[in-house]
C-alpha cells in the first residue's frame, strides 16, 4: 500500500518536470533589428498618409505607427514615429531627456523578454499569433494590432 502511494506522488513530479521542459524548449528569444507596430488595413479601405507608413507584406497591408530599432542586446537605439509628412525620429538620448514620450508613445526600451512560443509571439504579456514568416521577417497579429519583427 505504501509503495503504491509513493508511486502516485512520484508521477506528478515527473509530469511537471517534463511539462516544464517541453514549455521552455518551445520558447525562444527572438533576434531582430527593427520592430514595426501598426494596424492591419482592412480590404477596401484607402489610407493616405506618409509613404513609409503604408507597407504591404505578403497580402497584408499595414498602417505603421512606429518603428523601433534595437542593438544586438535588444536595447533600443532609436524610434521612428509616423507623422503625416514622414517619420519623425527620436534618438535614445532624446527619449531619455524627455521621458514622458516613452510612455505616451508606448516605446519598448528593452525587448530581451520578447519570446517566440510555438506559433505565437509573447510581447509585454500579450500573445500575438504569427501570420507570416520568411527568412528575415515575422509578422504577428492580435485583433487588429500588428507587430512585425525584421532582422535584415
Amino acid at each position, binding site marked *: 500500500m505504501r509503495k503504491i502511494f509513493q508511486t502516485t506522488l512520484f508521477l506528478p513530479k515527473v509530469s511537471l518536470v517534463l511539462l516544464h521542459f517541453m514549455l521552455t524548449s518551445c520558447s525562444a528569444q527572438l533576434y531582430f533589428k527593427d520592430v514595426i507596430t501598426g494596424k492591419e488595413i482592412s480590404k477596401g479601405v484607402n489610407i493616405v498618409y506618409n509613404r513609409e507608413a503604408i507597407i504591404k507584406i505578403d497580402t497584408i497591408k499595414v498602417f505603421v505607427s512606429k518603428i523601433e530599432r534595437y542593438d544586438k542586446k535588444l536595447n533600443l537605439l532609436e524610434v521612428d514615429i509616423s507623422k503625416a509628412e514622414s517619420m519623425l525620429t527620436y534618438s535614445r538620448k532624446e527619449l531619455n531627456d524627455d521621458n*514622458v514620450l516613452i510612455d505616451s508613445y508606448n516605446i519598448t526600451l528593452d525587448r530581451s523578454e520578447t519570446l517566440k512560443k510555438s506559433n505565437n509571439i509573447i510581447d509585454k504579456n500579450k500573445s500575438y499569433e504569427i501570420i507570416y514568416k520568411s527568412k528575415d521577417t515575422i509578422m504577428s497579429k492580435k485583433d487588429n494590432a500588428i507587430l512585425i519583427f525584421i532582422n535584415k
Partner: protein
Amino acid sequence: MILSNMSFEPKDGNVNHYSGKYMPAYPKKNDTPAIKLTQKKSEQMYAEARPDALLLDYRFKEDIARGVMIHVGGSYENENYGHSISASEGCFGIVNDFNSPSNTSDKMTKEIIDKIWKQAQKSKSNPNHIRIIIEKRDEKNIPNNIVFTKS
C-alpha cells in the same frame, strides 16, 4: 466627407510661450530645416482638445499634443518623393505666396528657419534659444469638423 480640425492651439491662452528646438531636416531626409516646439522642457504639451485626433491615433489624449513643429508647408519638393503636400496634421507650415506645385515653399522655408537659427546662435545672453509665442485663436471661429455632402 468630414474634414477634421487638427490644428495646435494652446490650451490656456495665457500659457503660450514655447521654446524652439532647431532640426536640420524635416520631413525626414528632406533638405528643409524645421523647429520643434517644447514647453517646460518637454515636447508633450497641453493643447486645445481635438477629439478626432484620437480616432486617427495622432494624439493619445485629446488635449495633449506631441511633435508640434514649424516646417515646410503646402506644396513642396520632397527629396525622396518629389512633389508633396505638407503640414496637415497639427504642425505649423511655412507657405509662400501663390504656393503651387510649380511655385513651392522650399526656398522660403529654408530662408526663414535659417534666419531664426542664425539669430538664436548670435545671442550672447541665451545662445541657441528660440522663443515662440502662439496667440490662441477664438475656438468659435474654428469648427472642429466640416461636413461635406454631395448635392
